[in-house]
């Protein structure tokens, strides 16, 4: 009843386990990319402070999710002044420390979308084995650059199109055009654009996103995006 030592089909079997340093499967990355408005107007009412704290809290919650199915990776693009910058390269959530965004200048959403398209298409950033990304667009006003063409490119790209896209408009300055930009980004009539007219609703929005994303990472099928619960949403729209 005692089994065989090893078989020829397993050449490594003779090595003691302690001397081969085996590894287990690494969980698949579940990328979350935040496109964050860091324009000058975000300084009013400390919108930027609340946003920084909300994103940091969300990333901390992500880091605490331990699931063999998927590991949340987070990245952030900040748009301000005349350009969009990679504020946080895509990193496994447990190794992230959030650096606060500093607000200045204008709202170049087009540049942010361009950078996002490029980033998501890069296999070194989002490897082929990754789950569908989640992309969150946060803005407090209308774009100050040519955004239409970049939006089209983003939505036409494989990963941009497949992503779970969520948008939130912050503050009183979300006029019809700004709202239109966010709706175009989400491009899903079943997924409304969130409104956080009051600064205090920003954390609420990010807690909701946290719940959605962590639900995915624990889900038995992370690429099946769970249906939206209208009741949950009512408070946020």
């Amino acid at each position, binding site marked *: 009843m005692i089994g065989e030592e090893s078989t020829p089909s397993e050449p490594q*079997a003779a090595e003691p386990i302690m001397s081969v340093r085996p590894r287990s499967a690494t969980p698949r990355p579940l990328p979350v990319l935040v496109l964050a408005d860091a324009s000058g107007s975000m300084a009013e009412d400390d919108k930027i402070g609340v946003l920084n704290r909300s994103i940091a809290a969300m990333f901390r919650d992500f880091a605490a999710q331990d699931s063999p199915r998927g590991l949340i990776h987070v990245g952030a693009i900040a748009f301000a002044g005349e350009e969009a910058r990679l504020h946080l390269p895509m990193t496994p959530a447990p190794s992230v420390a959030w650096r606060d965004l500093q607000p200045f200048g204008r709202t170049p959403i087009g540049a942010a979308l361009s950078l996002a398209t490029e980033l998501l298409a890069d296999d070194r950033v989002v490897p082929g084995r990754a789950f569908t990304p989640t992309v969150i667009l946060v803005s407090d006003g209308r774009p100050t650059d040519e955004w239409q063409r970049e939006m089209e490119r983003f939505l036409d790209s494989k990963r941009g199109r497949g992503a779970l896209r969520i948008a939130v408009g912050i503050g009183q300055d979300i006029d019809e055009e700004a709202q239109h930009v966010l709706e175009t980004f989400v491009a899903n009539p079943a997924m409304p654009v969130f409104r956080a007219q009051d600064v205090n609703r920003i954390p609420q929005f990010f807690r909701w996103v946290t719940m959605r994303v962590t639900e995915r990472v624990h889900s*038995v099928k992370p690429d099946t995006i769970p249906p939206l619960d209208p009741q949950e949403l009512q408070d946020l729209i």
Partner: protein
Amino acid sequence: MEATVRDVRGRTLPLAERLGHGAEGHVNRVRDSPLAVKRLFLRGSRAHHAGLLEERLRAVARMPIEDLPVARPLVMLAEPDVGFVMELLDDMVPLEQQMLPPYEVELVAWYLATGGLRRRLRVLARLAGTLAALHSRGVVYGDPSPGNVLVSEPTDQDQIWLVDPDNLAVESDGSRSAVYTPGYGAPELVSRGSRISTLSDAFAFAVLAHHTLFAAHPFVGDEVDDGPVELEEAAHAYRMPWIDHSEDRSNASTLGLPGRQRLLTRTLTGYFRATFEEGLRAPARRPSCADWATALWQAVDALISCRSCSGHRFAARACPWCGATPGSDLVCRVWLHAGPDVFSLARAEEAPDPGRVVGARGWNIPAGELVAIDSGRPFELTARHGEIRSDDPHRPLSTVSWDGGSRVRVANVGVRAVLLVSGDGQVHRRLPPGRDAEIELRPDVPPWRLCFTSDPLSPHRQVTFDVVGPARTGR
């Protein structure tokens, strides 16, 4: 965000951490109480879901499972949730959280620190035994998965608790479509829409056992692990061979613990192969959960602590962890002594090996079981070893302690007398309950026997004591 739920009796229940998650919903602990809450994901009408769930729970309440470690549903949740409150044990965590490797962990150190091979085999033996007990009562569990099975949080314990009672079904009931966890659901559920059965439970159990024992999913080879999500979905639908397929090596794996056969008995190796090769398309070829339970307990019995490292090895085999060659091991072989009614006296007297005959009548038939004893660590022989048929296989009968040399002490911790018989049959020592005795093992004489009876002529189980060296194998 939502930190409380209400049940239909109007109680508000504050939720604590998430414990498990099945295919259909989440399970959370209820803060400061021996309760847990399962909430289902809502798809479609709430009333419809709630009605179906209530019907299922009513059926579960009628099932004869009070004595099994399965959470019993207590009360439904109130609107807007669909779910129910159930019982929970203290200090239990999902198997997934404790026994599947976490992110970026030093695999070997983590494996040994979470109880090593011995605890994993024991936990799995208990799980297989519980599933087998359900099956023997005509009940199917439905969705055995790492998120549905809770295990003791302290790593020196090995209790289990099943938390998905709403999927329990009577086997003959075909009214519900199957709920399963991808990667664990049996092929006939995934691709043919078959109903859950004792054999689909057995398949999911085998995947869970493989994943737990080796830190490797049996269908996720290197290419699947590196490939896109679609490839993993194909593996989870069993469109690729398992990683240790006897002919097709296309899905081979270097993940998890290497040299997997070293960590198993031959029986268990055969069971994995039978389940994942022939049993993939032919459910009836799969070993049952009762088969698994027996084979896993036998493997636990044959395991001893390595004297050179903190791992475990099988008696008379080299240590798979550090490679240390085996020293002298004390091995108990379990025999069935058939009484004179079974075999005639004449045949017994013509036996080619008179040493295998007790007195002049009856035969000793190997029961196929073997117990290895750690020196300095008393081993408890239970009804599983010493009784031909037992209501409680874990009831203690005798403890065996070995000094690592030639002295073995046997203590009767059961309720009936046992008999120690020297190898030559010349010495019989009766041990009443509560008494102990020491025997000396000598290489040149037939081994001592411990007979679980006070009448050596009646049919009974007995064990023999042999010290085996590295040159010999277990039999």
